[in-house]
């Protein structure tokens, strides 16, 4: 069982001076966790036993097992050689692509954000809609790297935002269809508009984090994940608006806006206001005040955008 590719090295760990409190480490041998460095369950052992014989010599073992008319064709040494050459060329090409894709597209880091399971998704959706009773918002760490989302409900993931975005586009199409305003290019327009707002938000937050010189371990992908959680509330609002008209829409949207506001503040507080959050006491001081304002501003734009992106869909 080999550990799958984790994010290469915790990006902020050694070089910057760490000012935030020591992270909560889970004991290395926790029952119920197979191997914390492994993002996904290893299901290959069951398969490889079944498919071992025909799969391993990828093309060369095949002619030995096939029926006679094909056997005569494939026993021809020239085509044997050609098949071997072709398969080795394919393997080389695959190796090359795998080596170089990591330079342009951080695939291994992305894998971490999709390591979720049903229980996590259920709990996280519940947390997004009702964050008021949750006590402990800190992300668990395992030897300096964050634990995969399936083991820690506070970890950000990209599965829910991605699915919620696609569902939002589809529900927007449904809403437009019920009002006879639908046409296929409007779907693309909705998707593009929501993506453009998301990009703008991410850029604005990155710019303000840079200007106020906050050293956080909040990566860009983390930020995209947190900003993508509002699509869940938007979907709820639109669906209620379809079923119960404007009253239902405003009620559900108001509730989801409040929940997202509280959720963002409690999550970002730990990332941006690291030192103050450790004691749990609001500390006075120009820097901390600026950080608090930034957190508030980020959390406040979420309800605004939720309203802006959905009000034109509900009549």
């Amino acid at each position, binding site marked *: 069982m080999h550990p799958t590719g984790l994010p290469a090295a915790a990006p902020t760990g050694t070089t910057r001076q760490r000012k935030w409190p020591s992270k909560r480490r889970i004991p290395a041998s926790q029952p119920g966790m197979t191997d914390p460095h492994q993002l996904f369950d290893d299901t290959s052992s069951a398969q490889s036993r079944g498919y071992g014989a025909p799969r391993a010599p990828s093309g060369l073992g095949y002619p030995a097992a096939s029926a006679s008319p094909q056997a005569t064709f494939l026993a021809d040494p020239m085509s044997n050689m050609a098949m071997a050459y072709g398969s080795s060329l394919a393997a080389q090409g695959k190796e090359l692509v795998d080596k170089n894709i990591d330079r342009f597209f951080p695939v291994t880091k992305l894998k971490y954000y999709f390591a979720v399971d049903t229980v996590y998704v259920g709990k996280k959706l519940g947390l997004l809609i009702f964050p008021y009773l949750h006590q402990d918002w800190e992300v668990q760490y395992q030897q300096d790297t964050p634990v995969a989302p399936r083991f820690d409900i506070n970890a950000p993931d990209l599965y829910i935002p991605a699915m919620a975005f696609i569902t939002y586009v589809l529900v927007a199409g449904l809403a437009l269809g019920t009002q006879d305003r639908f046409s296929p290019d409007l779907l693309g*327009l*909705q998707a*593009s*508009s929501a*993506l*453009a*707002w998301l*990009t*703008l938000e991410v850029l604005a937050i990155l710019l303000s984090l*840079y*200007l*106020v*010189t906050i050293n956080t371990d909040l990566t860009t992908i983390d930020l995209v994940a947190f900003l993508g959680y509002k699509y869940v509330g938007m979907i709820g609002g639109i669906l209620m608006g379809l079923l119960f008209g404007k009253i239902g829409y405003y009620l559900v949207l108001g509730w989801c806006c409040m929940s997202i506001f509280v959720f963002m503040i409690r999550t970002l507080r730990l990332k941006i206001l690291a030192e103050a959050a450790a004691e749990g006491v609001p500390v006075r001081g120009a*820097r901390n005040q600026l950080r608090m304002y930034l957190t508030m501003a980020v959390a406040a734009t979420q309800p605004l955008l939720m309203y802006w*992106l959905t009000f*034109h869909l509900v009549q």
Partner: protein
Amino acid sequence: MAFTLYSLLQAALLCVNAIAVLHEERFLKNIGWGTDQGIGGFGEEPGIKSQLMNLVRSVRTVMRVPLIIVNSVVIVLLLLFG
């Protein structure tokens, strides 16, 4: 909703162009944003103004050549396709 990715790209290109045309001697020095007036030693707090000045200076240095290329391409495309 007219806010698309394409208009975001256009806005970004225009903003970067705007930062790139700020003249160092005639303008930035006169309002106190010159690159030699900013650095305040190795104190812990760079401050927002010096961060902004750093940002302007780095954008101007890094984006000069790519902007030439991107602007030419966009001009040609807009002339051809309106």
